[in-house]
């Protein structure tokens, strides 16, 4: 257990160093791509917490990102609030709505939950289109930037910082009892409840936490890209986030980050191939789910572990993970 712990940390540290070094070697185009990839990374990781750890398969995650983007932009543009006030207020709104959603979906699971959250996201998107007077509808809402000068580099590092902070915050949450309770709820809600887990409270907690993180990602995205449109909430966009998390590893937060960066980078590298990229994405999503349900990141991590530690012929078991003292 300890060995794996160290090894995966070394791997993550190396990846972080690599990410820090990118602006030094890459041109402005790839810095821009990287900064966008961080938006997806934060979304995919927080969705992995919601769907992978807690078993709440939500289609409304991108809606919370859009809520963040539009919230921060509209509060500053229409109400004239300073950013320092608009951003925390937006996150607060996202948390309140996240709690409300968590409370509403308490009794729903599996496909019912997926359909419910899909409907919520659709309603939100349609409202953004319909209320043109406020949101400028499909024309798109112009959003002021955060930094003057410096190009995309400051955004790149801000995005990277958000990824690291989000991962630390979520890992912190998972290391507490809450993390174990969430997994217990996912495996068997009835049994968890019978063992004294307050399932209501923990489901709401996970919705609040992941909604807040999604809204922060959306705020970052809005101010970075400079224009918001209801297309942030279309189903294919949610599909992209799901694909990233599943390919990277739906039950591993760093895995989801790697999945997001790899998928997004590949989609840029293969730009010449047009829509074939997404054909490949759909195929990859089906194949990964069919043959490597824990995602490619865990697949590689386990492979590394097995090579360096021949003793651990037994795979990393669930018991091992639960035995980690909290």
């Amino acid at each position, binding site marked *: 257990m300890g060995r794996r712990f160290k090894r995966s940390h070394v791997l993550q540290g190396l990846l972080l160093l690599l990410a820090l070094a990118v602006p030094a070697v890459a041109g402005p185009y790839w810095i821009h791509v990287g900064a966008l990839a961080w938006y997806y990374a934060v979304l995919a990781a927080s969705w992995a917490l919601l769907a992978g750890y807690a078993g709440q398969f939500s289609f409304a995650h991108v809606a919370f990102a859009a809520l963040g983007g539009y919230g921060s932009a509209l509060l500053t543009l229409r109400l004239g609030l300073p950013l320092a006030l608009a951003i925390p207020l937006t996150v607060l709104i996202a948390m309140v709505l996240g709690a409300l959603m968590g409370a509403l979906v308490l009794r729903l699971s599996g496909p019912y939950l997926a359909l419910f959250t899909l409907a919520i996201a659709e309603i939100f998107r349609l409202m953004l289109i319909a209320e043109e007077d406020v949101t400028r509808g499909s024309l798109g809402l112009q959003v002021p930037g955060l930094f003057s000068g410096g190009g995309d580099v400051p955004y790149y590092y801000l995005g990277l910082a958000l990824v690291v902070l989000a991962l630390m915050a979520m890992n912190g949450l998972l290391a507490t009892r809450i993390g174990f309770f969430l997994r217990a709820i996912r495996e068997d809600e009835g049994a968890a409840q019978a063992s004294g887990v307050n399932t209501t409270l923990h489901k709401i907690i996970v919705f609040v936490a992941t909604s807040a993180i999604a809204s922060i990602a959306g705020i970052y995205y809005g101010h970075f890209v400079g224009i918001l449109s209801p297309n942030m909430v279309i189903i294919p966009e949610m*599909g992209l986030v799901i694909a990233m998390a599943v390919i990277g590893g739906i039950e591993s937060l760093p895995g989801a980050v790697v999945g997001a960066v790899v998928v997004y980078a590949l989609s840029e590298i293969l730009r010449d191939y047009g829509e074939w990229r997404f054909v490949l994405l759909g195929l990859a999503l089906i194949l990964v789910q069919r043959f490597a349900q824990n995602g490619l990141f865990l697949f590689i991590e386990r492979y590394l572990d097995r090579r360096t530690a021949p003793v651990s012929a037994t795979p990393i078991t669930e018991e091992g993970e639960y035995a980690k003292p909290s």
Partner: protein
Amino acid sequence: MTYFTLLTTNGLVIGLIYALMAAGLTLVFSVLKVVNFGHGSLYMVGGYASYYAITLLGVPPIVGVVVAMLALFGFGVAFERLVLAPMYTDKVERKDEYAIIVTFGLTILLTNLALVVFGPFSKSPPSFWQGTLIAGPLILPYDRLIASIVAIVLLVGLAWFLARTSLGQALDAVSQSRESAAVIGINPKRMYTIAFGLGSALAGGAGALIAPIFALTPDMGELPGVQAFIIIVLGGMGSVGGSIIGGILLGIVQGLGVGYLPDPNRALAYTQAFGALLLIIVLLVRPTGLFGRTHPRLD
């Protein structure tokens, strides 16, 4: 009055197509306990299959619908065997999520494949029958009339098949209890395959019927796909009859909504949002739907 009749009949036609799609989705859900998130893309593929059967093979338009249904039946069977089948074994731990992800992956795959292969521009297959029926206040292009008649025939046929044939009853038995069905000698796995194939064929048929009315585009399945979700929730997630009534009602309500609400941009957005809101309310208040029965989870 004429305007009202026009909107109602148009809503009814679309509602019948929705009902056809929703019936397929319901059949899959009731037997496999899987919501097929790729259903809308199968509808789209059905439209194109019919188009190419008509233009390349030169079959009459109505035969194109049959070709599309057969092609989609085959595709559904293959997809179920290759991708969904591991779900019934212990290899897959979280079955609900597995099914959502692979069927959703199917949507991404098919929609983009259609963009590459068929191109982003819309295509219009030839009419079933040129011209328009005018009878008093009723104005109905023959394409819509024929699509409705074929949809009704298919829906009645489906209802008859499920209620009166031994295969249909076997499907119903598996939908009620997999174990009990197995005890009396029905092979549940075979029924899963047949149900998914039939569900796909119904989606394909709906797409082929709508093709001459609206043009074909690779993303044409997205909106009807969402509508079908709304309808099966309304109809109680697994009641074929419920989904038929739900589909017709939703089509008419939306037809009237778009026609009568002021401000076309808002009207279009909010009539769609209305359906989604209906889904939310039904799931919260009456998860078994308006005509529903409860469904055991697949474990």
